[in-house]
């Protein structure tokens, strides 16, 4: 299955865009989970309810504006496909470039940061990969599926840095999040 195929089936549900994350096993990626992937819930941060009572004076500030539920843009889907092809062909640097191009278009797409982290790990830059996975987490509040996958990646990145203790903690987080799904 290619990434593109998976992405072409977004299911709109309760105002959230549910995306199924593709999970092929590319030749040059390190081994990863090959089970059928669970749905990934895109960013979904609703605003706190507005004051119901009529207010006197100045309008209340709105610290957290309403959620932006954006359908995955075809441009981003296309770039993900390109990145996947490049990664599978062994050109990880080009795959990184394509993912960064996608991030320029959709900077807060946690999935893109996750893929970038994966590629960076395959390139042997475990510290960078770990940080990028943390970044992906910060962009996916409430998205336990994405977070669980990020923690799995963090665990691998930590092992690659000989941080076994940290890796065990990350594995634990990944499992907890997976159980919450």
């Amino acid at each position, binding site marked *: 299955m290619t990434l593109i195929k998976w992405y072409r089936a977004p299911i709109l549900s309760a105002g959230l865009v549910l995306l199924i994350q593709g999970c092929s096993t590319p030749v040059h990626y390190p081994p990863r989970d090959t089970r059928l992937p669970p749905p990934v819930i895109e*960013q*979904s*941060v*609703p605003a*706190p*309810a*507005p*004051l*119901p*009572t009529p*207010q*006197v*004076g*100045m*309008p*209340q*500030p*709105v*610290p*957290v*504006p309403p959620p*932006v539920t954006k359908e995955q*843009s*075809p*441009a981003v*889907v*296309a*770039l993900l496909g390109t990145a996947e092809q490049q990664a599978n062909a062994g050109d990880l*640097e*080009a795959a*990184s*470039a*394509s993912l*960064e*191009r996608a*991030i*320029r*278009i959709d*900077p*807060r797409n946690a999935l893109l940061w996750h893929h*970038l982290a994966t590629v*960076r790990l395959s390139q042997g830059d475990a510290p*960078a990969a770990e*940080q*990028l996975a*943390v*970044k992906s987490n*910060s*962009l996916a*509040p*409430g998205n336990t599926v994405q977070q669980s996958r990020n923690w799995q990646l963090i665990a691998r990145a930590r092992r690659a840095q000989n941080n076994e203790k940290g890796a065990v903690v990350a594995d634990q987080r990944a499992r907890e999040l997976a159980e919450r799904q």
Partner: protein
Amino acid sequence: MARRRTRGRKTSRRKRTRKTFPWFKLALVLLLLAGAYVVWLDIQVTSQFTGKRWSLPARVYARPLELYAGSELSPQLFAEELRALNYRPVSSVQQAGQYSRNRETFHVMTRPFTFWDGEESARNLRVTFSGKTVAQLADRNTGKAISLARLDPVLVGSFYPAHNEDRVLLQLKAVPVSLTDALIAIEDRGFYRHHGVAPMAILRALWVNLRAGGVVQGGSTLTQQLVKNFFLTSERSLVRKVNEAIMALLLELHYEKDEILEAYLNEVYLAQDGRRSINGFGLASYFYFDRPLAELSVDQYALLVGLVKGPSYYNPWRHPERARARRNLVLGVMADLQLISASEAARAKTQRLGVGSVGRKAINTFPAFLDLVRRQLQTDYRDEDITSEGLSIFTTLDPQVQWGLEQSLQGRLNELESARGVEPGKLEGAAVVTSVQGGEVLAVAGGRNPKFAGFNRALDARRQVGSLIKPAVYLTALEQPERYTLATLLDDSPLTWTARNGDVWEPGNYDKENHGEVPLYQALAHSYNISTARLGLELGVDTIVSTLHRLGVEQKLNPYPSLLLGAVEMSPFQVTRLYQTFASGGFVTPLRAITAVLAADKTPLQRYPLNVRAAIEPEYAHLVSTAMMYAVRQGTGQAIYHALPYERSVAGKTGTTDDLRDSWFAAFTGDRLGVVWIGRDDNQSTGLTGSTGALRVWRDLFVQFNDSATIQATAEEIEYHWIDPATGLLADAACLDAVQLPFVPGSAPQQHSPCARGRGALPAAVDWFQELFE
């Protein structure tokens, strides 16, 4: 003795040998010398010609414009970008570099371009706009929708070697045949037949020139001309002529005609632009016509070929009549040789010269940004590599943001000076704009005059930052949720602090008032000095220093209490680095001006990848951003909303230093971060606060953007509560001034404010998260 004897014997023989022997010897020596000389010339010719032939300046490109359905781009900005790329408006698009517009619909034939990640081929696009977004993108050849297309990037500058020779290298196969035909017709008709020198050509040239009643042809072959330009000085002497002839013969001996022609096309001198000499047809095409050679018409080729004879004498701007006559003469010769038809020649002769404007030849359009690029390059490349290896440098510069910034800064400074009766030109400014998540530098202003390539204030003007430092103090507090929340009341009553050495510090508020007890978020929003100083002293100045380092501040900081109120000097760029961490939700994100570098042969050399480093937990980044949003909603940054729509989410902080010497504003939306500084080079008072000065520039710029993204998505571990700001306690429907504030779980106040009289709870904001997912 012996010598004499020998000589005597020789003298006796001399009679017999005198006539032949010395002459033979001399001839032999001369022949050997001549042979050695030829060998020496040969070594020169082959070594220089085979090796690298030219040092090529690095070319610096802006970010390419990405086109896709749904991208935020107005038709007007699109047209501006096409103009910057010198795409030509036509009624019907026929070739690359042309576009047509019918209200909301553009037809564009893009130019092929080699990017870091490969070649983007030429495409025949139909771009349809709807309001300020791209509604549809389709391929006109197939009619099918396209998900993504890139335009070629705008060339924003070059880094030149010391001798200022500039060229765009051409390969012969990319050179239009009409051009080479015309060139050979005019300069060296026997090019493909001779062996480097053509004695008959000199005679023929004489004849042709006589017939034409002026100098139409020169006698020397293209090969000789190339040799002259390539190896020799321009002195006119017989020795040089001989050298030229020998070297021309040698060159022909070693190399194919096409190689020689290609070298000629790239070497020939075609214009002077200030100190920069324009060499080769590749660059000349851009210089005279603002577009690549492949996009020119036959009359334009004829003009370029005509210019070979004397770029200064036939300068089409200074001597248009001479240039036109020369061009038409070339066209006439082409028609005579049946390279073009007579009617084609007649039509071409009626064309206008079609040269671009002279004024647009400024080499480096954005000197302040290029300065940053150069500094970032210098960490990886030697100076001579930057100026001579023909690198292509892809940057993050967004020309549209850069133009907007330059106009905003210049316009606002003029306005401020005239409104306040400041001597014109006294106020200076600098600014940096970046993308929030990627840390890409989109624009840099180094001063109010954007074309001035001198002192780059954005990078080098280190000034006191004042209140811009405060978010670091409040962040340090909020990172201890058991002690401090956004609702914690801070003491803003007078403060006297005595150092160990007996020095006394008594900070005061800007409005010279004390505000009693104020909730933490308001103390930041209104930029109260006393409560901030007291808070910072409670936390410890050392702790604040380490927070600042964690946030990405690299310079050494002295842990003096005055640091808490911004008695520390930073450049606008350094401030941007600090605020980038807040804007990106707590990640130190290196500010990149370069994305990739290609070698001269377009092979990838280096990429500057996107990297981040977690510096603050997302929930604390969220809390401090919220306080900065209040600073813009209700505090010192309110003037933002005099121009920006109220629903636009902005977080920021003003900064003002003693005697109003520096006016700062640093603020971000969900998409972009901008830091603006206004001050004077002589460090005198500007009469401006952060709000009356720098903020206005920021606003003039950001009002042009449609930054719809919200500030960093809420962190997971956050709950919202209604708070009565007067007491910092929980509110209910009876509290009319209640605000909704975010808290780290468990840190919210437990008690209700006296205003809460059980008139019913405000809507529970706490559990929205669970409700959605359970």
